[in-house]
């Protein structure tokens, strides 16, 4: 089986050969360097202006001239930057998996309704419980922890349904419709909750839907990081069957792949990745759809053995840059993350995809 899949992979490279391979390795190495650069930029820039020399002192374990700076860099900016890399990578990879599984360029990590499930969980906690509190009473009263727990509960519920369905449904398309319908049903419940809520609660809910990396603390990262690590590892193991799936489920089956088992692991992996990110950072849109397209266009390939690491790196990089812009270095306020990712990212992706006229060749269908 593995030999047959390898042949498929070679066929997928559009301009194969050693020159293309070299370009891909250079690309991946370059991307890693840029990612490191962006990581340090995120540590150095923020609302509070801290001199670069002080940043270096703090990162090498020294005491800054102001004690609050140590806390800001190590306990706030560092977990935020790490969260951005992990979340960006997770969403981009799960987007790639879903686009290939459903052979649909518009698929994203939330296509199975995970986002809707998490939103419902959070809406139930934020909108329904606060109804009894007084006028102008207190928004954000529910701690971040309760938001995380409710988002996980909601996402797990939907994920469970989808995974159970994935075990006995024959066609991936049926799953797609199931996820879509679950999404509609949960957003309907959220609408009803919003309708009966006071403005302050709605504000608290909307703030959650904006997404953010800064809410994740060091201790929460201890949970988030291993979960995403496992999901990314699983994705790495699935690159070969993904390549086979590119040619269609029946073709993959004829190549000897156990399509149903592959589908199950793809869905489980995506659910874990997207579910964890949504629970800790809110529903972060755009990255999941755009990054796979961006990588396919830049690398001119659909080979998941290259696409997978490229998507991870690119996802982390774009998330870091978006977070950097959202924190508006030098100003005391911050912008909603989702608005920044889409506003800045969309034109870039459009330009690259149009420039390279990608989509037609991206899905070898």
């Amino acid at each position: 089986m593995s030999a047959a899949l390898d042949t498929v992979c070679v066929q997928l490279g559009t301009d194969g050969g050693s020159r293309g391979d070299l370009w891909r390795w250079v690309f991946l190495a370059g991307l890693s360097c840029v990612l490191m650069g962006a990581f340090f930029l995120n540590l150095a820039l923020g609302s509070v202006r801290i001199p670069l020399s002080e940043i270096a002192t703090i990162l090498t374990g020294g005491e800054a001239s102001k004690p609050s700076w140590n806390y800001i860099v190590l306990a706030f900016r560092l977990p935020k930057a790490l969260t951005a890399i992990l979340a960006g990578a997770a969403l981009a990879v799960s987007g790639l998996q879903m686009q290939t599984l459903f052979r649909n360029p518009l698929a994203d990590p939330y296509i199975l309704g995970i986002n809707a499930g998490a939103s419902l969980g959070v809406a139930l906690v934020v909108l329904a419980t606060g109804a009894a509190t007084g006028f102008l009473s207190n928004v954000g009263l529910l701690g971040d922890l309760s938001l995380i727990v409710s988002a996980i509960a909601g996402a797990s519920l939907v994920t469970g349904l989808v995974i159970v369905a994935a075990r006995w449904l024959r066609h991936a398309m049926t799953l797609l419709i199931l996820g879509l319908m679950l999404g509609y049903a949960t957003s309907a419940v959220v609408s009803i909750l919003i309708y009966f809520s006071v403005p302050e609660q709605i504000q608290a809910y909307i703030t959650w839907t904006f997404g953010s990396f800064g809410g994740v603390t060091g201790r929460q990262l201890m949970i988030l990081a291993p979960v995403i690590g496992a999901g990314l590892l699983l994705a790495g193991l699935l690159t070969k069957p993904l390549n086979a799936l590119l040619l269609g489920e029946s073709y993959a089956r004829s190549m000897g792949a156990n399509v149903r088992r592959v589908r199950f692991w793809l869905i489980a992996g995506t659910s874990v990745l997207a579910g964890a990110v949504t629970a800790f950072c809110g529903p972060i849109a755009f990255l999941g759809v755009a990054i796979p397209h961006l990588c396919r266009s830049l690398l001119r390939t659909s080979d998941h053995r290259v696409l997978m690491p490229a998507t991870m790196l690119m996802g982390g990089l774009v998330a870091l840059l978006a977070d950097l812009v959202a924190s508006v270095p030098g100003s005391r306020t911050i912008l909603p993350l989702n608005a920044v990712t889409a506003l800045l990212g969309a034109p870039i992706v459009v330009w690259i995809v149009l420039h390279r006229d990608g989509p037609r060749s991206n899905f070898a269908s």
Partner: protein
Amino acid sequence: MALLLSIVVRSNHRMLSALRRIVFGVLCVLILVGVALVEAQTTTPLTQNLTRACVEHYDPHIDYFPEKATLAYAKGFTLEYFKNYKILTVTMPWPNAKESFRYVLVQCGTPAPEGFGDSQVISVPVRSIVILSTTHLSHLELLGALDRLVAISTHDNVYSAAARQRIAADQVAEVGRGPSINLETLLDLRPDLVTAVGHDQPQYNSHPLLQNAGIHVVINSEYVEPTLLGRSEWLKLTAVFLNQDGLAQRLFTGMTQRYQAYAARVENLPTAQKPMVFGGFLNRDVWYVSGGDSYIAQLVADAGGVYLWADDRHRASIPLSFEAVYERAGDADFWFTSNQDWFKRADLLAANERYAAFKAFQEQRVYNNNARLNEHEANDYWESGIVEPDVQLADVIKILHPEILPEHRLKYYRWLP
């Protein structure tokens, strides 16, 4: 003899008719005097507003509102008095409002003035009231008009024991507010007046819906005021509808005097003795801090504290990044939060472990405004707190400078152990 007799009879007859004329004349005079007396009685000026009655004989020369209210701190509304009507203009129905609302309050039993076609013309004193915010409940209670309350937005928000009794006795209905207001119940109740809160996002406002349904509705948005005393003065807005202008004036003067007496005790403290104060809470990675022109900023300054965002020029809360707040408030002395669910510092930690990085947290100087919560989770801070600015100030002084008010016991604020 016969002749003599006839003369006597005739003169008698003449005497009788004269007598009759005199009696008639006297009667006429008496009636005239009586009428004149009655007239004179009504033209004597009123000494009090009619708080429970209507005028039976209208006289255009009488001032029907001898007791008047004048405004000292409130910037969001104005009052003008005329003989049988008063004009209330709410100039700040919500923050940064472009429109204002004018209400013509006519003494009942007197004719409405001409030329106010575009305003609501409301007969006062109103006999039944619906309030869509508990901040208005303390007004009614203070003005002795709780018996006129027929409905409220949400029962669960009510703290006042007296109002709770009326709810238990089924005398106060529940009608909701905003887009989910129960219009049918309201139409059925036919209240003389509904008091609603204005909101800068139109979809949350209750007044357009009510006005379209022909229900008199006034906007009472004390929260737009940048000072605690300004907020309390909106008591007068409720009072003018009850003709309790005089009572509200006296009550508010008392609040002002007590507030200023407290403020005077910390006024001359040297800056070095003024602790640094901040507030708010973290929502994801946004920290909402009360603006430097908010009533919280004013309250802290009046209580002899330094509000860390006093240089800011916002009345509402400002969204700040965590970094910006930590940089400025990390080593502040006191933290005032307003979270209904926090009773101890461990509750803060459960919400977000970053709170532990603040000095005020480490040194156990965190205070919350939820000292008076009842079993329905209603917070009296938003109810009687509205009309006790002096007690609120005393609370904050007691927290910042306990030695100045050794006898005072905290009423609205709670120390979080």
